[in-house]
């Protein structure tokens, strides 16, 4: 179905809003439709959609690149106010339990694994919760787990070395 390009302005906006709402509810925009919409100049950057899931950061191939993508900077100083808890030796790299704790007024906590192909494993944005995030992560091999906490307008980093006896990313 051809994408409408010559409708009066009001109608274009309604069409686009309806399309965006419908596809958003369905769970995403198909690549082709997105390209047409962007090409026709009708797609305005939607903060809600962009903030939904930081694809570039999750697909970044290094810690630096992931931080750059998330924050526009890789500058994260080592901080004793952030603690990374995990077993020093993990038998199963597919399920390494990790806990990040901080007393800083954390806005977000990111968990990255240095030697994973895509280091960013997960993040917790904390509009109204304490500086704590625990989960289980996959580690391809023995590596450093790195936590980055955003607090007081700065990035604070801490790490823990974990030895993995059986790597856990599959494939």
């Amino acid at each position, binding site marked *: 179905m051809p994408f409408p390009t010559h409708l009066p302005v009001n109608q274009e906006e309604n069409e686009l809003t309806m399309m965006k709402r419908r596809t958003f509810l369905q769970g995403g925009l198909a690549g082709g439709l997105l390209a047409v919409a962007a090409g026709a100049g009708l797609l305005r950057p939607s903060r809600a959609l962009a903030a939904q899931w930081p694809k570039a950061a999750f697909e970044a191939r290094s810690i630096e690149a992931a931080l750059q993508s998330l924050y526009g900077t890789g500058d994260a100083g080592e901080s004793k106010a952030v603690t990374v808890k995990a077993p020093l030796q993990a038998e199963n790299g597919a399920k390494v339990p990790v806990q990040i704790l901080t007393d800083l007024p954390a806005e977000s906590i990111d968990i990255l694994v240095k030697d994973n192909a895509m280091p960013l494993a997960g993040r917790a*944005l*904390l509009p109204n*919760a304490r500086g704590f*995030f*625990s989960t289980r992560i996959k580690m391809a091999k023995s590596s450093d787990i790195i936590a980055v906490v955003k607090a007081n307008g700065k990035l604070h980093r801490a790490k823990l070395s974990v030895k993995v006896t059986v790597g856990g*990313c599959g*494939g």
Partner: protein
Amino acid sequence: MARKTKVRTRNQAGVVEVLILVNHPMETGLRKDKQTKKKIPAHFIQNLTIELNGKPAVNAELGIGISKNPLLGFRLKDAKQGDALKIAWKDNKGESGVVDTTVDL
């Protein structure tokens, strides 16, 4: 087919901790099916949110580096027995889950 999402709350050193377990493959998209030799498509939870008494408390963004059947733990602020908790998640294929429950220590 709804995926099971289990939510538990507990008192951890005077603070309300919420633990969430979702039955989900968290497939990376990098594995190959041993028989067909084809790549198993990525299928993983991307977003999970927690609302406390109707207001956003946590917004988690997850990737393929989170283990299968994700277990997530957070510690809430200003939470007490009986408070309303809503946990909602969404994956890259558009599947989602919601749990409405209360803080029960």
